[in-house]
């Protein structure tokens, strides 16, 4: 691992600012896309095309009364909303945005990602418990169970990509996808990973944690004002992070499809043009995945708790292990005989 240099801090600052802003953009995008899906107009009053709507939302949240349940645990109730936000922000450290544009090249980047991503559930579980409400408790418990069940298939799907890269560093992982993206060589792993990412981000069809219909908001029923705002922010940051991870692991990161074959046509590495191209390719893919997140949310019903468990443990986990073993076997054959 190399020590961070000045440019790393610059990239860190830019990417953190970007991530925080992206939540606002996501809120706006979600509301407009939802409106489009539902034959509505959507927010169009605040600013040009309603683009300032997220700002108005935040201002509204700040001015709301901050209520803490009397019989709840006040400390945990206050700490809980911070955890998902912080873990989402931590994730960005190892994601490469372009050729040489990364904050830190961690040689255990994948492990770091999996570890940090699973920390986020503590916030939700603590929120559910600290609220002293039965509905919130259910939300929190569901969140814990869901996170446990989907960590495993997600880890196995990532492991199958590690086989191709031969490294736990995300930079290496992206560079191995220069010729063929992960989705082409490992489609089953891609599907498993996307499903698990949806589950980790607690988005429909895996939003049992919130379950607006039966649990009426689940873990954040008792939250108001900016504490609720933090959960809201974290949800959208997790969507963005999830999309970035899908992009990094399976959609070739900042590489254009099959870029290795026509690399001589692209700008040279290390130039501004190349950096801009890389960042735009990366953001384009991320934006597409965010759109998929939103699209799915507004069209598909939600799973039931037992269906969620059986999908995670009985279907995805065996499938992901089988996928891993088969890929490992094929790679071994290729390396040995070719």
């Amino acid at each position, binding site marked *: 691992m190399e020590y961070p240099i000045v440019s790393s801090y610059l990239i860190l600052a830019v990417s953190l600012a970007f991530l925080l802003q992206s939540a606002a953009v996501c809120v706006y995008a979600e509301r407009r896309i939802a409106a489009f899906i*539902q*034959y509505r107009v959507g927010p169009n009053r605040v600013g040009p095309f309603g683009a300032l709507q997220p700002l108005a939302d935040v201002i509204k949240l700040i001015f709301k009364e901050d209520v803490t349940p009397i019989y709840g645990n006040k400390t945990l109730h206050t700490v809980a909303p911070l955890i998902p936000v912080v873990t989402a922000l931590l994730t960005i450290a190892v994601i490469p945005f372009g050729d040489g544009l990364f904050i830190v090249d961690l040689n255990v980047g994948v492990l770091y990602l999996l570890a940090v991503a699973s920390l986020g559930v503590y916030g939700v579980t603590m929120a559910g418990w600290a609220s002293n409400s039965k509905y919130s408790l259910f939300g929190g418990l569901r969140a814990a169970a869901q996170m446990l069940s989907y960590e495993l298939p997600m880890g196995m799907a990532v492991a199958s990509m590690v086989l191709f890269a031969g490294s736990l560093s995300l930079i290496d992982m992206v560079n191995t996808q220069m010729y063929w993206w992960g989705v082409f060589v490992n489609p089953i792993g891609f599907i498993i990973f996307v499903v698990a990412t949806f589950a980790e981000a607690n988005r429909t069809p895996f939003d049992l944690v919130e379950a607006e219909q039966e649990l009426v908001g689940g873990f954040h029923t008792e939250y108001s004002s900016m504490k609720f705002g933090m959960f809201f922010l974290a949800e959208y940051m997790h969507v963005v992070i999830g999309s970035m991870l899908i992009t990094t692991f399976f959609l070739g990161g900042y590489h254009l499809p099959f870029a290795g074959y026509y690399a001589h046509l692209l700008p040279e590495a290390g130039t501004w043009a190349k950096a801009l191209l890389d960042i735009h390719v990366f953001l384009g893919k991320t934006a597409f995945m965010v759109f998929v997140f939103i699209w799915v949310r507004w069209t598909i019903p939600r799973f039931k*708790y037992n269906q969620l468990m059986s999908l995670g443990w009985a279907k995805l986990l065996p499938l992901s292990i089988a996928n891993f073993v088969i890929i490992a076997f094929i790679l071994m054959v290729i390396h040995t005989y070719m």
Partner: protein
Amino acid sequence: MELKNSILDKSKPTFFEKHQNALYKSLEDKHTTVEVEQDPLGTRMILNMGPQHPATHGVLRLLLELEGEKILRNRLDIGYLHRGIEKIAENKTYQEFMPYTDRMDYLSPYSNNVALCTAVEKIAQIEVPDRAQYIRMIGAELARISSHLLFLGAMVMDTGAISFFIWTFKERERIYDIFDNFGGHRFTISHCRIGGVHNDLTPECISMIKEFTESFPKEHSDWLKLLNKNRIFYDRNANVGNITYDQALQLGVTGPNIRAVGVPYDIRKFDPYLKYDEVEFDIPTRLEGDNLSRYFIRMEEMLESIRIIRQCLDKMTPGPIRTDNAKQTYPSKDEVYYSMEGLIHDFMMTDTGICPPAGVECYHAVEAPKGELGFYIQSDGTGHPWRMKIKSPSFTNLQGLEKMLDGEMIADTVVMIGGIDPVMGESDK
């Protein structure tokens, strides 16, 4: 026991002690008391759902005894929207009472109007012209589609797909527009009159209805495409909320809910009122008795309603829309404004109303979207009913819900409530 003691401590019965004790006992045995018994591990929990819960379709209250996500026992509590409609009826003339029926099953006001009118016409022996009957049928079937659309939107939303609610509301909006043209009111239409209907359909309204009957089946088939092959929706509904043939019959479940267990009981065929014996339609029936079958039945019923509306539009012939007897119905506005007799009759109708013979009683039921909606009227010869009892389908269907809930998961509760499709305004009256 604790409840009883606590009440006894507070009030100390002195008068008719035995009787009061019995009262307290009945309070204690009140259907809606759930206490955790035999729970050595401390894993059970009582969850109170409603009456202020967004997914219980109004003010239904559920008490659930849970073990994890599973419901062990449940109790239903209704009555939070009780407005004493039956008692109000005793102080209103029959015609005056009609707007109240709009507010019973507020998702299909027209069906309620028809139910009241047909019951009063039966007890007062009023003949209704053919054209009025066809107009009523069109209104009732449109109301049925509107109600089933809300069922569809609400139930699919309860499973988690929020957009569906708005898609069905787009079609409901068109039905509202039709009703606006139909009787001058979008929602609580009160278009029926005893002895006929208030006004004839305008050509514009007929063309709107025709357009709706043409475009609706396409939208309907789109929804079927979206839902029938959606694995999550299918799994959420199949084998959920099962009720057996016997249970359903014993509890008096009616409407689509009983047709879902294989009883083809539809009053439109069973005991035709209006002109339902002159139109062709089928009664969709299923055998499974689960939530999915209730969904399928309602989806098919919407298409049958479209079929009925089309036939009504074809069979309607020009003619009077109200019976021509001033003792039985309101005179037309022309008569009221331009003739003395008309004005007198109008006053008399408003003041005294239609007087059925004294001592007569009758029960008449119609097939409302939710099931059998019946009005039992006892007359004392005045313009007010001496007693009016409303048999509302939501009330009986909710009894079935209690049987269905045991052993299911919490997430199923809202879906099942959606599947039963109760309207608390009608259940609590």
